[in-house]
């Protein structure tokens, strides 16, 4: 016990800061572990991330060869093909496993882009205020009001069909909400005494933003990230379904597209339609549940409900 007290004074500021952050992280993690919904969401996500990471082991790409498919077209589920086959005789289970890779990848990439723009615009607008704020927020509002799926469709149609374009389009159409939330937080943060103190000590804008503003908006950005990933995965599915996806890679959306195009509905080939959709629902649900759990951690008022 006493050993803990003395080194505190001699440790460098950096070490103290790190210790404090580890402490905060631990207490958040404890709260999260106590949240049943959050844990359930996290378990779902862990399963899918595992599936995506080991996709090439679980479903070797050779088995997805179009010319040398292992089964006959549209076989119903059997012992050999647990989820049946598609119109080319490929196993739907293999397709779904491979699809998880692309769907999650696009989801995360799009979210990273969205967060980067959102955080940058939010911090700039909130911190600098004045004209920068007015212009940036008008811009944000414009993006917020424009119906985002049609915008994404138009952008994707113009820019062409590749994974990166899809991620970029989703990123470009989902950032405004983050920007608004971050801006609101920055507005209150920059009036805090410690920011004023830092400025009085001669800290520049960059120093204040990276040292004082960013660490404090980060939890907020993170909570937002989780919800944006869910939206990004849904949007990727929709765009792929509409035929705007990368034609050379398999995602859950593109599986649904080919299932629809091959008339799986009227053929009653439910094994072709249900699994990819179910994966999407589970992943999005997982992210949403984690998101709610984080909201509760960040906003103590919600905890009692």
């Amino acid at each position, binding site marked *: 016990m006493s050993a803990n007290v003395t080194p505190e004074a001699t440790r460098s500021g950096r070490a103290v800061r790190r210790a404090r952050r580890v402490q905060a992280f631990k207490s958040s993690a404890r709260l999260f572990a106590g949240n049943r919904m959050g844990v359930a969401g996290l378990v779902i996500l862990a399963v899918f991330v595992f599936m995506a990471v080991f996709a090439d082991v679980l479903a070797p790409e050779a088995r997805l060869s179009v010319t040398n498919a292992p089964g006959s077209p549209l076989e119903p589920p059997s012992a050999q093909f647990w989820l049946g086959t598609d119109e080319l005789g490929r196993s739907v289970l293999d397709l779904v496993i491979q699809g998880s890779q692309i769907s999650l990848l696009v989801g995360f990439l799009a979210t990273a882009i969205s967060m980067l723009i959102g955080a940058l615009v939010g911090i700039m607008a909130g911190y600098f205020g004045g004209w920068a704020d007015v212009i940036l927020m*008008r811009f944000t*509002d*414009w993006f917020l*009001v*424009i*119906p*985002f*799926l*049609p*915008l994404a*469709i*138009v952008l994707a*149609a*113009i820019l062409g069909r590749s994974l990166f374009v899809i991620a970029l389009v989703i990123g470009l159409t989902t950032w405004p909400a983050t920007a608004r939330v971050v801006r609101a937080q920055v507005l209150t943060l920059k009036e805090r005494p410690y920011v004023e103190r830092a400025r009085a000590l001669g800290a520049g804008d960059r120093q204040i933003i990276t040292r004082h503003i960013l660490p404090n908006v980060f939890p907020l950005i993170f909570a937002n990230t989780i919800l944006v990933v*869910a939206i990004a995965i*849904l949007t990727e*599915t*929709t765009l792929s*379904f*509409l*035929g*705007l996806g990368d034609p050379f890679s398999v995602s859950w*959306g593109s599986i*649904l597209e080919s299932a*629809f195009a091959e008339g799986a*509905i*009227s053929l*009653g080939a*439910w094994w072709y*339609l*249900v699994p990819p*959709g179910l994966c*999407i*629902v*589970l992943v*999005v*649900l997982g992210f*949403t*549940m984690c998101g709610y759990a984080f909201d509760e951690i960040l906003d103590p008022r919600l905890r009692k409900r």
Partner: protein
Amino acid sequence: MLVLNFFLFRILPGDPERTLTRLQRVSPSTVDEVKRELGLDRPLPVQFFDYLGDTARGELGISYVFSRPVSEVIGNALWPTILLVGVATIGATLIGTLIGIWGAWRRGSAVDTASLGFGLVTYAMPEFWLGMLLILLFAVALDWFPTSFMSTPGLTDASAGLLLVDTLEHLFLPALTLVLALFGEYALIMRSSVIEAMNEDYVKTARAKGMREALVLRKHVVPNALLPVVTLAALNLGFIVSGAITVETVFSWPGLGQLTFRAINGGPDYPLLQGLFLLFSVVVIFANLAADLLLGLLDPRIGRA
């Protein structure tokens, strides 16, 4: 809010012009011509009305896919979408509001928990996948409803009553899909809004006067709690239209959504896509304006601010 809306109206006309020039690599003179056509060289207030007039007259170019003016193609597809979206919006708002009130009134009850969970799941679903499942179940397996189109082919000379029944039968599944996809959000908003209103002072006063609980709910809580739902319904209109894109595709509903799908996969058909995007944007902005005005009417406090 009005300033914001005016700003959006001003920035919108610039967008199709920019998109157009980027799409087709047109010469500067054509850009000027397009600008003149869209009225972009005139003062802003004039431009605003001209722009509306032009859109109404429909100088939107010729569709590649249909080889007919974009305005005509869109005009033909407008009514089916209005019918579908209208029915779905009314259905979702009504059901969502009622469930939301019930959930707030009997918080923690089975109905409340079930509707919250159901809302979460439908939120996580791509609408078109839900549509596919409904077709599989109700049209393919049970054969209760037709799978696609707005009416049975060759039924044009039947009596008006038969035609109406036929259209309603075709409308049922796509409308149900949209209602299921949407009502959860309304229920959620209405629920939290009712809970908030229940804690207001005037509600406590009404209760203290000895008013019956059901009457308090009907006279004091619900009217006030409805405000956010009105906003959401108006704001959502544009998003429902874009949500209808995939649902219409799945059901071959001859509306704007299916048109969008054909525009993407037919080339892509840039003039048609542009026209559709323009229309979607205008709808959303008008919906925003309508929400503002309506809120002002419903809540005198906002009108004066």
